[in-house]
């Protein structure tokens, strides 16, 4: 491959791509050029049309209009098979692996029939030495970390010898160290002349890896730029269309009383491949935001349900709310003691998607008697609470009291956080509060959490997003394999230290308190 200049024909060109779903236009005359050997970032907020565009390129969706050119010739990519045959590979955000099969078996599944497992192992070795893609062919998948699983997906993709590799939010499940390893692999691929289309909303990463970026907003291309010549702020402004307000947080290190405390909580997982909680202890004080970092699947969901009471702890004393032992009490009693909870899954857990917003108020508010009269429902009260939240949290929606599923992710999350924050709880526990939420809504939600804590509440944020925790948490701990490390003041820890804890690279027991 020769060094490229502007004007060199693109490897892949998307021309005037239009995709409509009913009356909604997800892609509106999008042009995208990707040259051989370049790392090209596709930027945009949730709902900007990134996923739709990429699905069209990978043959999963048929465009309503426009055309795709490969090396200057118009092609029809009517299925992922056709896209792969044309040299386009994709690594998805959610892995499609069989937990009980080994690495080699999972990779063999995508190869033509008749390939021997031994030869697959040899090919994996080849990839490891060539791209630094560390894989152990005989390990069963369920024992692997997210980073290792992603490497399987990348290996699957590379065995098809693609000219263009699409990666969808690849670092969302990685530790900073794993992300570094991924970037060096990607750089090696680029040097070979392969193109990379990199979808992310982590702007620092994009500036490190990519030399060109296409920014989408509301389905349209709003800018094409070199991200290295832009700042994170200017990139964010292109994505959002306005300037973002910084979250204001004065660090709070005052010693308030512990309002939520966990003492030696151990809980066996109900799920075969789930994570068991092991001897977890920490305390969240009134007035502070406490962050628990960690890679997805390290026990966050289990910890959340033990704190919320959706799963009961083994002993009453395992969880305290304002000094009261609640380990054996259900979620509604914990709510009555003043605690509030926001689970990770917006649709289907924190809300019932087909229910109206006012009905969704009932979900968490019926426990405290605000929306009930005896056994009957006070519809008027529920509606007026919904209305207050919609107004004070600036929730955008169509209609008067629409079904939860019709709201965008950011607006629904604002409503659900609002539902709990407006109760003025003494303890608020959130799991991934801004996951998949647009930047403006995320900033708004973070500000509300800080404000609530400064009024004296204990706020616990479980999050995979390190940037978020460094922005809002006063103290931080890391969850890894069901164990929670000692809490540290956020201003005293570095990303690298947290990254190492996330990868579990501390001597067992050292980071976890075993006070007797």
């Amino acid at each position, binding site marked *: 491959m020769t060094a490229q200049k502007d004007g060199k024909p693109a490897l892949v060109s998307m021309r005037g791509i239009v995709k409509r779903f009913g009356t909604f236009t997800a892609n509106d005359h999008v042009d995208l050029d990707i040259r051989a050997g370049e790392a090209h970032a596709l930027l945009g907020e949730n709902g900007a049309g990134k996923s739709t565009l990429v699905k069209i390129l990978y043959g999963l969706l048929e465009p309503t209009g426009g055309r795709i050119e490969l090396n200057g010739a118009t092609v029809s990519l009517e299925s992922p098979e056709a896209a792969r045959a044309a040299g386009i590979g994709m690594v998805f955000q959610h892995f499609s692996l069989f937990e009980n099969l080994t690495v080699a078996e999972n990779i063999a599944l995508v190869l033509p029939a008749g390939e021997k497992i031994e030869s697959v192992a040899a090919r994996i070795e080849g990839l490891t030495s060539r791209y630094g893609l560390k894989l152990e062919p005989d390990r069963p998948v369920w024992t692997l970390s997210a980073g290792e699983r992603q490497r399987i997906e990348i290996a699957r993709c590379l065995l098809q010898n693609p000219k263009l590799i699409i990666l969808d939010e690849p670092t969302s499940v990685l530790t900073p160290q794993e992300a570094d390893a991924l970037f060096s692999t990607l750089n090696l691929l680029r040097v070979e002349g392969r193109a990379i289309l990199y979808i992310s909303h982590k702007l620092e990463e994009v500036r490190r890896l990519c030399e060109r970026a296409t920014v989408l907003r509301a389905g349209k291309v709003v800018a094409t730029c070199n991200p290295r010549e832009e700042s994170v702020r200017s990139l964010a402004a292109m994505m959002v269309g306005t300037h973002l307000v910084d979250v204001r947080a004065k660090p709070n290190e005052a010693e308030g009383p512990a309002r939520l405390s966990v003492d030696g909580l151990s809980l066996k997982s109900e799920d075969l491949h789930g994570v068991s909680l092991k001897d977890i202890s920490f305390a969240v004080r009134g007035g502070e935001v406490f962050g628990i970092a960690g890679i997805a699947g390290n026990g966050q969901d289990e910890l959340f349900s033990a704190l919320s009471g959706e799963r009961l702890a083994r002993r009453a004393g395992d969880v305290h709310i304002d000094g009261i032992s609640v380990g054996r009490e259900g*979620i509604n009693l914990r709510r009555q003691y003043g605690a509030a909870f926001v689970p990770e899954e917006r649709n*289907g857990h924190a*809300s*019932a*998607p087909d229910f109206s917003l006012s009905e969704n108020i*009932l979900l968490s508010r019926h426990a405290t008697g605000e929306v009930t009269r005896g056994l009957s429902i006070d519809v008027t009260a529920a509606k007026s609470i919904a209305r207050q939240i919609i107004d004070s949290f600036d929730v955008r929606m169509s209609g008067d009291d629409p079904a939860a599923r019709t709201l965008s992710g950011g607006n629904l999350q604002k409503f659900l956080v609002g539902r709990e924050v407006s109760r003025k709880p003494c303890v608020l526990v959130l799991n991934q509060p801004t996951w998949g939420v647009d930047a403006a809504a995320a900033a708004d939600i973070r500000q509300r959490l800080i404000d609530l804590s400064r009024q004296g509440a204990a706020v616990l944020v479980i999050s995979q997003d390190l940037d978020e925790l460094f922005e809002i948490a006063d103290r931080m701990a890391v969850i890894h394999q069901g164990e929670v490390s000692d809490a540290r003041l956020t201003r005293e820890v570095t990303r690298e230290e947290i990254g190492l804890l996330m990868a579990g690279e501390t001597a067992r027991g050292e980071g976890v308190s075993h006070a007797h």
Partner: protein
Amino acid sequence: MRIELERRTAQSPVIEFLAPLLAIFAAVLIGGALLSAIGKSPQQAFLVYFVEPFSDAWSLQELAVKASPLILIASGLAFCYRANLWNIGAEGQFVIGGLVGGTIAVVTHGMDHALGGYWILPAMLIAGALAGMCYAMIPAFLRFKLGASEILTSLMLVYIAEITLDYFVRGRLRDPKGFNFPQSVPFEDIARLPFLAEGERLHAGILFALAAVFLASFVFRRTLFGFDVKLVGSAPKAARFAGFSEGRLTFAVFAISGAAAGLAGVCEVAGQIGQLQPVISPGYGFSAIIVAFLGRLQPWGILCAGLVLSLTIIGGENAQIAMKVPLDMSRVFQGTLLMCVLAMDVFTRYRLRLIWRRSA
């Protein structure tokens, strides 16, 4: 060519309302085609099925009499189906309710009645409802404790109920002076549901059906329990987040639907039949499943749907007499109706798209 179902962004209330009517229309067309395939005139069948039952007061009352158990059972089943729990065994709960309630009538037959015997009918009704409720607890328990599919267990319990009734009616409950016919003594008047008017067909069973509709409507609309039922069916994880216990709800909805079916069963023997027989139901418990869905699990919809299904039962009997159409034909028609209702449900939620791909 490929067929895709695309989720509609908004469901139009007009379509929601029209869907069951369209389903009935489609079922009538399919039924007509089947009839002409076996050499009967679809036009005549239409008249016999859907017009003649409205022609005189007697058949109009018959319509209400047959609709009552359907509406009562379906109102109970709506609780289960809204919660996504599949009680398919209402037929069995109906039979057990009839058997237990009827047994009281048989045992007290010919006795010197304390308190003038006015306690007998209420005792029968309560015992029938309780028996249906307990019988429905079996699949609920098996599901809760062992994770057994309630669809299979509740269905299989239907056959056990039917055989149990048959056993008792041929055995201990048989009328000793009944010339060995497999049936019980005719119930005394004190053990029978009163007729609403002298010399008419309509008995008090319909009042229970109407009460069930009112009650279900109130519970679904106004109470936390009704909210819980719908929430568990729609988003089980959200129901747990709301602090509702799935186990308790499973037992509650099975108890309600079982009690409704049991009450319908005892009303049938104490109202319509007046004695115990080896078979006391022409499949009410199964037809009620269709009623529940045709009524979109809404109590008032169930009231209308019960009348429609009752029409097909009476029409089926008429067609059997007038046109020598086999009885199975009306069962086939009921099945067709259910399929059409479910298919319409899909189309109200999804848009059908045919995708013609140009070949590469």
